[in-house]
């Protein structure tokens, strides 16, 4: 069976789960639930993107939210109606104040631009290993944030960029999440993905096996940057409003907590972590305002969601560094479970004649 068909087959279960979530939410039809589900799909796309790089290289990346921002601002600048842009960014450079494109070309340009920037930045980051690479990604995030907040003519600085046509809906989110899942799984199982994981396991041995480590890191970084760009486009074209703060530390820690909780080494782990934290965040958010539960008037606990995310990262790092799924895919866990059952059954059948003789 070829790589693509095998990946499609192995992805059927998680894809069905995502479709079921979307179907359930649409059948309820409440705008709040739809919004929560849409944000879940955006974050899921972002976490799959992060998994491509972190799962392959074993390096943490603090910089991926920047790609989300680059793609989001790109579509915002290209898609926003001219009349509004004259108001928002009248002095935009390169004549961008007078440019207005449709959704498809805007999205394509945003993805290509994000990919090109990811490639250029990746040329430096892919040559680094360990902590140096991680610090470099953090520096990249800060640099992009500084550009967003200080290049007022193009990005409006710290103020919100609003008026972006809200063209996407829950199905866009679902589609993007499924595409991101397939890309992440295809890359992970591809010969290059396997080589990259080998390098993260043992760098010296991987080099001795002819693995072009820097080239593969660059590939993973660029690919994950483009997929991250999809998440940014989803955000901009759903909310209609973006600001630099949407693509900074809060978003970085949110998607990182999601990935670490499930286990960064597997795509299934990314899905699990995103599900658990999305549900957990909704619960903690409902507690923040101080609700009355079973007659008990709870006090307001502002910042509980942030505390929850921080606690998740600390707990996972302390007690289960490989995450909930231990770096395994659903199908691997299922195969291991079947093997265990088979060996247990074999042992039972081997013991039976001995017991009869006794």
């Amino acid at each position, binding site marked *: 069976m070829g790589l693509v068909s095998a990946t499609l087959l192995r992805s059927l279960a998680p894809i069905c789960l995502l479709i079921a979530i979307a179907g359930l939410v649409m059948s309820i039809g409440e705008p709040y639930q739809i919004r929560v589900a849409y944000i879940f799909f955006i974050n899921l796309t972002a976490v799959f993107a992060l998994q491509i790089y972190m799962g392959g290289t074993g390096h943490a990346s603090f910089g991926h939210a920047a790609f989300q921002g680059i793609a989001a601002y790109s579509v915002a600048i290209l898609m926003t109606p001219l009349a509004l842009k004259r108001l928002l960014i009248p002095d935009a450079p390169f004549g961008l104040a007078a440019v207005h494109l449709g959704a498809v070309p805007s999205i394509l340009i945003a993805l290509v631009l994000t990919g090109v920037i990811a490639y250029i930045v990746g040329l430096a980051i892919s040559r680094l290993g360990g902590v140096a690479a991680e610090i470099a990604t953090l520096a990249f995030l800060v640099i992009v944030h500084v550009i967003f907040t200080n290049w007022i003519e193009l990005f409006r600085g710290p103020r919100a960029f609003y008026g972006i046509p809200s063209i996407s809906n829950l199905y866009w989110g679902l589609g993007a999440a499924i595409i991101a899942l397939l890309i992440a799984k295809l890359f992970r199982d591809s*010969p*290059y993905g*396997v*080589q990259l*994981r*080998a390098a993260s*396991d*043992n760098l*010296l*041995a*991987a*080099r*001795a*096996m*002819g*693995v*072009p*480590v820097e080239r593969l890191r660059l590939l993973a970084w660029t690919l994950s940057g483009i997929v991250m760009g999809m998440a940014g486009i989803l955000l901009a074209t759903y909310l209609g409003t973006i600001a630099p703060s949407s693509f900074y530390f809060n978003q970085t820690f949110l998607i990182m907590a999601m990935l670490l909780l499930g286990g960064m*080494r597997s795509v299934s782990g990314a899905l699990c972590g995103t599900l658990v934290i999305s549900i957990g965040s909704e619960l903690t958010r409902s507690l923040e305002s101080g609700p009355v539960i079973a007659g008990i008037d709870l006090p307001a606990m502002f910042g509980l969601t942030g505390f929850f995310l921080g606690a998740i990262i600390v707990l996972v790092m302390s007690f289960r560094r490989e995450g909930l799924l231990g*770096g395994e895919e659903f199908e691997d866990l299922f195969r291991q479970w079947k093997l265990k059952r088979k060996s247990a059954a074999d042992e039972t059948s081997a013991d039976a004649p001995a017991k009869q003789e006794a």
Partner: protein
Amino acid sequence: MVDGISKHFGGVYAVRDVSLTCAVGEIVGLIGPNGAGKTTLMNLISGALTPDEGSVSLGGVSLNQAGLSARAIAGIARTFQNIRVFGRLTARQNVEVAHTSYLRDRADKRRDHSIDEIMAMLGLTDDAQRKASTLPYGQQRRLEIARALALAPDILLLDEPAAGMNEQESLALIESVQSIRDEFGCGVIVIDHDLKFIMRVSERIYVMNMGELIASGTPAEVRQDPHVIEVYLGKKASVS
């Protein structure tokens, strides 16, 4: 071919002016007591270390500018003294890592052994889907060899392949090394400090001590060499 290679750390020479050759289809042994510089020499040949002096070439082509990865592609594959399998990957994926490099980057794909054939040859078929970290020690050693063979090397460097093995396993390994040479047509350089193992498996032997070559020749010649007896075995010892 290694020509006049030297490497020093600080003021101490780990390897000094060592030259050796290994022809395709030949099994060459490299012995010496602990600290003789055997593994440093292997690191210099494979490109894990850069020599201070001297050169390494393969088929007349200089590899001085090539790093570890480039030398692997050029045809020098190796195993490690301390096992370095990719523990999170399955045994088959371990071999696939090297096979991918071979298929992608090797200019002359003249040998055609599939991953499954290589694994079968090393007795790893039944363990193909097991995580490498869960394999027994002996199987991990075999997996390292299988992985190196997937590069279809011209020269295979085996760093203490018999370490931790009992007599019976060592004998089986000797057969494996000889059949690998016959099947793959590659030269094999075997490093070990187990003299019996090296004497049985090698056609030619180099002996190192304190970073320098002190003797070379057939096993019979080396066995009788007074330097080897004095420096490596002690004055009154002999090699059986």
